[in-house]
């Protein structure tokens, strides 16, 4: 059950960060409705964010493993 709560927390954080970043990147001048161009941008932004999250996750795990085998390398 703790693991489940963790997964929910994790998903919520991801949704919040993507919404905030993609709203900022794609909707500079909010109008009465989202234009097709803006919603296309949101979709691309969302894909790019998820791929970025994957790259950062892998690089960070790699770095943690390196530093635990070579502590002088820090966290």
């Amino acid at each position, binding site marked *: 059950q703790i693991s489940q709560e963790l997964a929910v927390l994790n998903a919520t954080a991801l949704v919040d960060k993507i919404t905030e970043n993609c*709203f900022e990147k794609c909707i500079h001048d909010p109008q009465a409705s989202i234009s097709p161009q*803006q919603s296309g941008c949101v979709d691309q932004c969302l894909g790019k964010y998820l791929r970025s999250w994957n790259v950062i996750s892998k690089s960070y795990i790699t770095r943690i493993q390196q530093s635990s085998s070579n502590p002088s390398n820090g966290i």
Partner: protein
Amino acid sequence: KEIMQFVESENSKSKVQMSIHNFTDMCFKKCNKDKPILSADLNSGEEQCLTNCLNRFLDTNIRVVQALQGVQK
């Protein structure tokens, strides 16, 4: 049981309040970007900008949630 209901309703009230603070902060920044403050009033353009900012943010949020649910399936 009534106490639990009261606590829960206060809890969700508090979440809504904190969301309103965050949305106001974000949309105040967006709608006043690169503009000096020249009046305490909101003109109709500014009021429209705030409402649009909130609703397009919530649209974006829904789109993100739906897309992530699609990825999960």
